[in-house]
């Protein structure tokens, strides 16, 4: 199931940039046999359409002092989940946060430095207004995360 509005040029741009977002437009243009201008325009279009949300450098958290990943499940007072979600995403070290249909109301994936840091993070979330319950789990032996989604 592929987005109907995209042609071969668009999908190739996406494929190349997902692997290396610093690839020059000139290089992509050469591969597709079109002008760099075309690539630049398409890139802008993909951004305007909200297909490309963002671009970033992928940092290895283990090299900058983080030691593991933790998954938080958060229960909140009904109708306040959006509000709490906005607060959670502001916490440094949070990689992903989302509303969830399932066991918890919100889920958040966080990189953690050490046990003390883990406890602090839990406290921070617990102290937010409307939060009723926080459950943390520690991820060990984590298989590589899909980098275009989780950016670790």
């Amino acid at each position, binding site marked *: *199931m*592929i*987005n109907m509005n995209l042609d071969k040029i668009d999908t190739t741009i*996406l494929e190349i*940039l*997902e*692997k*290396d*977002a*610093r690839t020059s437009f000139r290089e992509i243009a050469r591969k597709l046999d079109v002008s760099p201008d075309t690539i630049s325009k398409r890139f802008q279009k993909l951004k305007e359409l*909200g*297909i*490309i*949300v*963002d*671009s*970033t*450098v*992928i*940092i*290895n958290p283990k*090299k*900058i*002092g983080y030691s593991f*990943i933790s*998954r938080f*499940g958060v229960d909140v007072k009904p109708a306040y989940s959006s509000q709490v*979600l906005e607060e959670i*995403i502001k*916490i*440094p*070290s*949070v*990689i*992903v*946060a*989302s*509303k*969830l*249909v*399932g*066991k918890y109301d919100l*889920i958040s994936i966080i990189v953690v*430095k*050490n046990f003390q840091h883990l406890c602090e993070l839990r406290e921070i979330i617990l102290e937010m207004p409307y939060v009723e319950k926080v*459950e943390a*789990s*520690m*991820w*060990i*032996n984590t*298989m*590589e*995360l*899909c*980098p*275009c*989604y*989780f*950016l670790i």
Partner: protein
Amino acid sequence: MKNKNLDEIDIKILRTLQKNVRTPFKEIANQCNISMDTIKSRYNKMMKNEVIRGSTIVVDPKKMGQGNLVIIGIKIVQQFSDLVMNIIKKMKGLCVVTKSIGQYDIEAIFLLEDIEQIGIIKDKIEDFPQVKSADVGIFVDKPLLCPKNFEFE
């Protein structure tokens, strides 16, 4: 916890690239008031040290018709977590699978094209005799990604 491997310039480079990975080195050089070659060699050094693992664009999966993110928490009968994990690793749509300490023994995140697949995957996992139970959670709306939040100190 101060990071000994990175100095101010490194951090400045990382911060800038986190915001926009396509920022030309020249622009970063101007901002830091040092030469472009220095920026380049710092960048290459961080690549070599694996502080930087690469760069990517974030694509909205919904707009690409890639569907729903689903997290599955699995409880296992004692020592079989490696076995089950290896089986899950081969399943279609998997983004990440991990052993876990907490409520579940294994947690896995899938990106699925349609809702029906969730049931199929849950059944498949629960069919294993080593699996006690599998709880499913479906990400709703667009998950907020915040990879830019890393603290460097």
